[in-house]
């Protein structure tokens, strides 16, 4: 019975559910694709003749898509929760009426969950079909872009459906759970009330969670000076989420207050701004729902952008501090270049040699550096912070500070290294300073590995009297001065960061967009009765439209302001940690991407407000 009512409700008032539908369907598409690709990778990997490099490439690919779809589903949860929160809030009288004619609280709850089930069913079906259609196209795109050269074999579509559809259903259920509980608490007398005041005070659970999360994040600040920059980097990826959850718990108090404050200077001059300010201050649900996705995406994306930029600043500063060789040669994979350099008689030719190995007890596939300790000390400023470089011989290796912290390794610990069929068990002889552009996290001395193993990509050269460029003429190698090489590495790091950001933040940005548009549109439809009253009192269509824009504008600005504060907080944590590690470092603030986030969020909110007000005014005219 309740499902029949749910079905009809969704069929009649579907615009309110569009946001939840789109978010869920996108999530199901991404999960479906991830499963399909993972299945294809699995099948291809078991085929004979797949090289190690191809294997790593494929595993990375399926991991990346997996992370993307997990982020997408996480954001979908918020969109579904906000949609159903609104739906329940706007239907107080209807739910009260149901209770009045005899529906028990449990029946009302089942009805709301039923509505989410209807939306989930439709969205999952659409998403599953779309993912089946898109998967071959996506694989073709990967091949065309040269991401993989292998001919991936697609698994049967039911595999993707059997995982993606339950995931979509679970997210819909989890998202609507709280709203359904609230719906069950609606009193039958709600059917008699014309309007109700919205509750602003956060619940006890919200106060507890919010306070814990906010205090927990503040506690990170005094620790920032004591942790390594790479550790701070990891913390900076998680910190904004924690702060955002803490702030959202107090959203119904924070955003109406801040929005009202921002609108105050305009309220005196413009009656539309005054209407907007008064509405923002009294209606807590709509401002909080609009602010949450803007805060989330601006804080998370902004923090990530700033952190990555600061990290690039850090590695560049490290390069400047440690790179003693005045010339750097990029070999371009040409073995002749290496041979010629060796023969040319330069003072130092410090080769950065990498070697794929199976590392540690779990034999994970990793790439390690093979170093000639003496020349690395001279050219790359290799220095031990614990232990001694002199110990590096047939029985010892070196690890970076971050690797030592992450893996909990100390001087004297044994680490298993498998090169091809050969298994070695050297001890840790030295812990060296982090310098990700100059060497990796694990360094094997040449004496341990033996001559010839590994590929040389870069050579750090102290030329003496030799003209390096002339010596390498006719090879694929490129000769750069140290400052030029540092600058180019910096550019490459930043370009790589941008690609990673797009892949990871693309879907979350899409979701934030859906959430922003969704909340503005639903809040607009909720406000029609008030618009009608305002228009009866003599407000013109223009004034009403301006009021809607003012409202979205001040709430968006409030959310961006708080988001900016979160970015500043996270940025300062990273900054303190980096400044402790290297003395001379210039921090670059990537203003352009930060501004782009702010403009996109604000623009989306204003556009949605405009669309919503046009829709409301049209509805008003129809009613008149």
């Amino acid at each position: 019975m309740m499902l029949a009512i749910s079905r009809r409700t969704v069929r009649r008032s579907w615009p309110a559910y569009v946001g939840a539908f789109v978010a869920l369907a996108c999530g199901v598409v991404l999960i479906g694709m991830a499963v399909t690709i993972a299945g294809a990778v699995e099948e291809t990997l078991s085929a004979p003749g797949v090289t190690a490099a191809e294997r790593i490439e494929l595993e990375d690919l399926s991991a990346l898509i997996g992370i993307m779809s997990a982020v997408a589903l996480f954001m979908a949860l918020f969109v579904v929760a906000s949609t159903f929160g609104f739906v329940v809030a706007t239907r107080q009288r209807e739910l009260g009426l149901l209770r009045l004619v005899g529906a028990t609280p449990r029946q009302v709850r089942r009805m709301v969950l039923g509505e989410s089930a209807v939306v989930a069913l439709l969205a999952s079906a659409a998403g599953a079909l779309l993912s089946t259609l898109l998967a071959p196209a996506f694989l073709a795109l990967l091949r065309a872009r040269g991401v993989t050269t292998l001919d991936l074999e697609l698994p049967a579509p039911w595999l993707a459906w059997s995982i993606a559809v339950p995931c979509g259903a679970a997210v819909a259920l989890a998202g609507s759970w709280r709203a359904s509980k609230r719906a069950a608490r609606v009193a039958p007398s709600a059917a008699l009330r014309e309007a109700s005041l919205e509750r602003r005070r956060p619940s006890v659970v919200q106060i507890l969670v919010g306070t814990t999360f906010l205090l927990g994040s503040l506690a990170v600040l005094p620790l920032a000076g004591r942790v390594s920059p790479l550790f701070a980097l990891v913390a900076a990826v998680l910190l904004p989420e924690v702060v955002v959850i803490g702030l959202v718990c107090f959203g119904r108090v924070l955003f109406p207050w801040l929005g009202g404050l921002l609108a105050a200077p305009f309220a005196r001059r413009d009656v539309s701004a005054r209407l907007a300010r008064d509405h923002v201050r009294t209606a807590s649900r709509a401002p909080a729902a609009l602010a949450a996705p803007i805060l989330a995406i601006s804080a998370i994306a902004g923090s990530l952008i700033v952190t990555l930029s600061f990290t690039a600043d850090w590695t560049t500063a490290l390069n400047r501090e440690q790179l003693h060789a005045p010339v750097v040669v990029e070999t371009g994979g040409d073995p002749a270049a290496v041979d010629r350099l060796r023969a040319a008689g330069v003072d130092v030719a410090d080769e950065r040699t990498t070697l794929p190995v199976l590392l540690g007890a779990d034999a994970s596939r990793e790439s390690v550096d093979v170093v000639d300790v003496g020349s690395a000390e001279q050219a790359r400023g290799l220095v031990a912070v614990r232990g001694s470089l002199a110990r590096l011989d047939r029985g010892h290796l070196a690890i970076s500070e971050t690797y030592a912290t992450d893996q909990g390794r100390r001087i004297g610990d044994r680490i298993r290294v498998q090169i091809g069929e050969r298994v070695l068990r050297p001890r840790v002889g030295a812990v060296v300073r982090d310098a990700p552009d100059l060497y990796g996290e694990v360094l094997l001395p040449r004496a341990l590995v033996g001559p010839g193993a590994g590929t040389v990509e870069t050579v750090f050269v102290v030329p003496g009297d030799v003209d390096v460029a002339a010596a390498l003429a006719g090879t694929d190698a490129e000769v750069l001065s140290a400052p030029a090489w540092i600058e180019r590495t910096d550019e490459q790091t930043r370009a790589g960061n941008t690609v990673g950001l797009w892949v990871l933040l693309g879907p979350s940005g899409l979701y934030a967009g859906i959430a922003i548009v969704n909340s503005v549109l639903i809040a607009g439809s909720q406000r029609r009765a008030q618009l009608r009253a305002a228009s009866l009192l003599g407000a013109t269509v223009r004034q009403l439209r301006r009021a809607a824009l003012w409202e979205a504008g001040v709430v968006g600005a409030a959310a961006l302001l708080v988001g900016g504060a979160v970015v500043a907080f996270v940025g300062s944590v990273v900054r303190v940690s980096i400044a402790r590690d290297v003395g001379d470092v210039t921090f670059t603030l990537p203003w352009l991407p930060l501004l782009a986030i702010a403009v996109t969020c604000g623009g989306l909110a204003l556009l949605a407000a405009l669309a919503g007000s046009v829709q409301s005014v049209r509805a008003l005219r129809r009613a008149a």
Partner: protein
Amino acid sequence: MTSTQAAIATDVAVALDGVTRTYRSRAGDVPALAGVTHAFARGSFTAVMGPSGSGKSTLLQIAAGLDRPTRGEVLLAGRPLGRLDETELTRLRRTSMAFVFQAYNLLDALTAYENVALPVRLAGGRVDRAAVLSALRQVGLEEKAGRRPPELSGGQQQRIAIARALHARPEVLFADEPTGALDRASGRQVLELLRSASDEHGQTVVMVTHDPLAASYAHSTLFLADGRVVGRLDRADATRIAAAMSELER
């Protein structure tokens, strides 16, 4: 049970016994009802009148178990409502009460037919199609069975709500300003239907109104002022009721 209590249980549909309801506000406690005792006899049609803020709507909500009294007791067919939890109260409401309001009586997503059948469905019962259509016929809207509320006029919506009450055959029908938003002809139709629910089907009707003409359709009119019952007129016409109201509002 004593013989007097048994007699009350059979002759009285709803009884209010010393009911007081106060609302908390920043300015202090505001009394909405101050010790109301009244028995609504089975099969009677009672209008409740009084100036704004006299406690009419509070009385209706407390009598229907939608609100709980601060002090005192409400008995439905001899059964005290105060001791029932939310679900028990809902079940009781489902089988024993029906409601008609000034506006917003129906679910927009359901057709007229489905709205009428809803209480029976919620109770898990089987819907007798002929009985639902007969209820719609009694209010003159059988041909509108497939329409949804937004496609109907205010008066028609009100009549559908009455059809729902007739179909479920509850003991008591509560109406809050049921003709408040209707034109005179539609209002008369609605009042005649309420009267026939009481006269022909033996249902008890309690109706809050501010319109003396509407009150004149009832068997008796109860006057409230400042949360107390201050008077009662039986089988009075609109003029007498209006005169009594003017006296109260003076």
